[in-house]
């Protein structure tokens, strides 16, 4: 296709290798005398005892809170439309079938 003429798998592989090299470079600059389980792995919060994992983890419902607040006027009716009732699904089916039939009928008239 025209849009894929520029595509070259070798370029992708080379880019991947370069990325891996950069990551390895950064890691190699790291602290040499790092040992697991010592005080190095503890979180340093200016001497305070850090809160336990339950409070540290950001839960899913906190993410994009502002996004949902900003789009409240879109989300409220949309979620309200998703009533998990089977009858409503068939209602949507009938409505769309009638709409498509009417559209085809009117376009056929013109």
């Amino acid at each position, binding site marked *: 296709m025209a849009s894929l003429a520029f595509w070259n798998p070798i370029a992708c592989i080379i880019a991947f290798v370069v990325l891996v090299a950069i990551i390895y470079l950064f890691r190699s600059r790291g602290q040499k005398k790092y040992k697991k389980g010592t005080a190095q792995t503890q979180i340093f919060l200016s001497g305070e005892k850090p809160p336990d994992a339950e409070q540290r983890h950001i839960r899913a419902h906190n993410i994009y809170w502002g996004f949902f607040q900003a789009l409240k006027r879109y989300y409220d009716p949309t979620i309200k439309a*998703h*009533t*998990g*009732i*089977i*009858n409503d699904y*068939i*209602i949507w089916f*009938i409505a769309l079938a009638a709409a498509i039939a009417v559209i085809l009928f009117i376009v056929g008239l013109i």
Partner: protein
Amino acid sequence: MTQGIPFNIPFLAVAVMIGIAFYIIISQRNLIKLVMGLSILASGVNLFLITLGYRKGGVAPIYTHTPAGIMVLPIPQALTLTSIVIAVACLALMLSMIIHIYRHTGSTDSEKSRIMKG
């Protein structure tokens, strides 16, 4: 245009039957009644297929001791046989699932027994 029976009354019956079935499906919240509506819908479609195959004054397309005369179309009857068996299979599966839903939630109301939404 319609010799014999005016206004294609059998086809009108099909239309009315399917309309009644859809009205039941969208208006009844009881799952058993919903399944009843679906089986009425299946019966309406089967009636449509059968009425397609009728020829005026035709006899059954079977040559054993058949009276003389034209025969009705055989293919719609075969299609109807297939769709009847399919409707029976769907009905059995739906009723089994409704039994399970009643066991879990103690209700066959499509709104009270609903867990997932949004």
